[in-house]
């Protein structure tokens, strides 16, 4: 059976520190756009931490929620793409083929999660900032849509390694950059087709829910709600 990659985010552990956001920038060569472009809504964060205020002072609550591509099984971004740049892989990822993308931005309009980002310009890294670029990840050009890949380069590397060593992939052997960096270990990544994987186990938790799950997008990211004190 092919793998079916999914993630579980434990909101009871997430502290909103945004280590995942920087980790994602470092791993995936996401450019910074500067204040002017950011003010026009062109900042790119494949993963972000949203905050939800509830109540009125002094009884205020805030809930953090890291939002990344939900890697939907019924992804609204895929059927709208005229060039099949946005497509579904065998392992269930919503992949983006940058070379096919012609920048219609239909996918971004179709995505209910606002996790697709358009390169309005060619990215620039002022020398020598370019030395930090990850050679495993291609740099996207202007006019191209980009998004979270679940760090497909890390998945592929681990799969190739396991195949070369003629062994099965172990649960927990793959950690996307956000999962790896999380100081509070709030995120778990794994194979949802393996009922014994930790991600599968946690995804079945009664605390689990899907973001905008009633849209029928069938996300592969499960959020575990915050708990109350005993």
């Amino acid at each position, binding site marked *: 059976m092919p793998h079916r990659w999914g993630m579980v985010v434990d909101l009871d552990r997430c502290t909103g520190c945004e*280590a995942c956001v*920087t980790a994602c920038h470092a791993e995936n060569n996401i450019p910074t756009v500067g*204040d002017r472009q950011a003010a026009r809504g*062109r900042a790119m964060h494949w993963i972000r931490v949203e905050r939800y*205020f509830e109540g009125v002072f002094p009884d*205020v609550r805030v809930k953090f929620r890291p939002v990344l591509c939900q890697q939907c099984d019924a992804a609204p971004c895929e059927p709208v793409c005229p060039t099949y740049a946005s497509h579904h892989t065998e392992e269930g990822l919503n992949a983006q083929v940058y070379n096919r993308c012609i920048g219609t931005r239909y996918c971004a309009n179709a995505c209910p999660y606002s996790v697709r980002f358009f390169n309005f310009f060619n990215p620039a890294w002022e020398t020598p900032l370019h030395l930090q670029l990850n050679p495993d990840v291609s740099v996207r050009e202007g006019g191209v849509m980009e998004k979270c890949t679940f760090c497909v380069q890390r998945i592929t590397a681990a799969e190739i390694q396991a195949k070369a060593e003629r062994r099965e992939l172990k649960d927990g052997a793959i950690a996307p950059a956000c999962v790896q*960096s999380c100081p509070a270990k709030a995120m778990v990544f794994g194979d949802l087709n393996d009922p014994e994987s930790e991600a599968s186990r946690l995804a079945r938790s009664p605390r689990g829910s899907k973001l905008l799950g009633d849209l029928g997008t069938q996300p592969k990211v499960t959020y575990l709600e915050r708990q109350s004190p005993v």
Partner: protein
Amino acid sequence: MERRTFIKLTAVSGTGAALAGCGVSEPALIRFVPDETPAPGIAEWKPGVCPLCAGGCGLSVRIMAADVDTVRNGQRGVVRRGVAKKLEGAAAHPVNGGGLCARGQAGIQLTYHPDRLTQPIRRVGSRRDGQFEPITWDQALSELVSRLDTLATNGQVRSLAILTSGRPSHRQLLFDQFAARFGAPAPISYNLFDEPVVRRANDLSFGHDQLPTIDLARTRLLLSFGADFLGTWNSPVAQMAAYARMRRNPTGVRGSFVQIESRMTPTGASADEWLPVPPGTEGALALGLAHVILKEHLTSAPPGRAASLIDGWAAGLPDFTPEKVSAMTGVPSARIERLARALAGQRPAAAIIGGPALAHTNGLAAALAVNALNALLDSVDQPGGVCFTPPFRASVASRGGAPLSGGSAPPIRGTLQTLASEILSGRHPVEVLLVDGVNPVFAAPPAWRVGEALSRVPFVVSFGSFIDETAALADLILPDHTFLESWVDAVPESGSLVAVASVAPPTMTSLFQTRATPDVLLEVGRMLRQPIGLPWQTFEAMLKASFEALGPEVWSAAQKQGGWWEEPPAVPPTARPVSARLPAPTRPPGRRIAVSGGVPSFAPPEFDAAADDFPFHLLPYPSPSFLDGSLAHLPWLQELPDPMTSAMWSAWVELHPQTAERLHIQLGDLVRVESHAGAVEVPAFVSPGIAPDVVAMPVGQGHVTYTRYASGRGANPVSLLAPMVVSGADALAWAATRVKLTRVGPPDGRLVLFSTAGELRERPYEGPGARR
């Protein structure tokens, strides 16, 4: 613009960007023979140490091949070599255990920053012009040496002053040793958000002159008085890791915590119970809780020395009945009683205090009250309680320890404020000033007149990699290697239950003509007319000597794993943690402060101005991205949305919706924030998580000069601070300033929010006053 022109332009800029992206620009197509041969595409992971805060986290640095621009024999070209690509947390490190905060990960941009100084520079013209010229290392060192020689010849050795970050490390120790052997006063350290008050209180209460380590993983109920322990306070990554274990406790019981503060921090957002109290009344609440526990005989622990420091403890704290504390704090007395019973009933329970709770005139008294509460709960040096990281005994790098060799006494340090006032008054003329890793011109309150004082010093030397406000006043800048290019170490004073010292060799060869500051210091020491005779040739030799003292294998093992630490003891949950088994440290503290009139007892907080003229408390807080502003030059952190507001590239003032409505201020409106000390104009952010009489501003922006990314951006709330002092601890009470607000005008685009276009909701907060 015509479509054709547009396409042409895109093509041109596209080619440029693609070339830049490959690191091969036009005149640099020559490829030199490399000195090292990293295999292309294969990553190598090397240990590192994060130097960005006092946490001392271990790093795992990903090294891969890249083409680096270089010059050989005057010919520009590229050479292939291994360079750092990504920083991750070292999985086995006892402080961070694999995690790494956003700041630490962005630290890689220090090495690759486009505005990094690439070689020594010397000021030309007056300080006001800010012009520098490049010079060679030989020229630079001989200039510094001749200045120091002149001091020695004229018998003015005490006119050398040194400013450092003061973080416990061998690097700091080297500066201490240099000063001691030269005959200069001990280096002075300054950090706006350092916690000297906690150290002082812990020294008085428990005999530990250090920040606490919370054994959160085993805590069932934690009370945090203002400590942003999941964000910026103390050792945040260690605390987040422990917090995660607390939430999914192996015993099956989910630990909970209560956050007491007047403005919601990200930590407050994660709390089970958020309890706002008026600024400066945290100590009263702690004593009120102790009162209830004492009165109802809920615990049996003898609180000992910590309690003996509190006035009226023996009488059962009669001044802190729930009713009286309720009147002071606005917390209903029933809630105080409930909290007290929960603390006594759900053990292990612990209390911590930090941040703004200590930055009031009564901060030390508040810390002592919390310490006494901990002692009453029997949570000091206990599983699930407040513990202390055992000292790294091999060396002297732990805060204030006895020197490795040489036998001089531990340094007695002055303060930045005293130094500045003595320079200005001429009482202590400073002829030469060395600055390493601090920017006091930016981070000290205006009344201290630090910039003016530094301008009066005839010769200022900075070791910084960037021209910040302090380095701009320097006569000579000797840029350091970054932490990825040099030997780096840290001896964290907290964050670990076992003794630990982080150390790592260089992960890559240096990109530019920079030199490691510790090695420069050692070389200067040798070049002096009367060499000061430090026993090490290099910083590496110093580290080696220190670690080898622990055992024959320790040094090589430490280099491989990024440090030395004790094996975590296999302690059953009921045993006392390791710090309790060690002999109580008897060493004298690094900064002994005279307490006039004994230990302060709790008194209502004092502020710099009356509420009639200045109706709001100003709460400056360490930015989750920039801490005290030292990281504002990193583009990743500038574009990182703030967790509470989603703001990027911005500074702002947070205010309560009611306050906003009353003053006719809406989200993004330009507001003038004015104190006795100064005024700034910043956009407003309306937030429900703040008391109506408090306004808060993140520290970090408002740099006059700090690279292309931070210069001239936003405003610096430190420029509003009055020089209020924490009573009994010679520290700045940075939360004791009052301000007034006036609306200046409509939004001018300075407040950049990610939420307006990038999130599921269009406004970060959709309540009253949040319209735009």
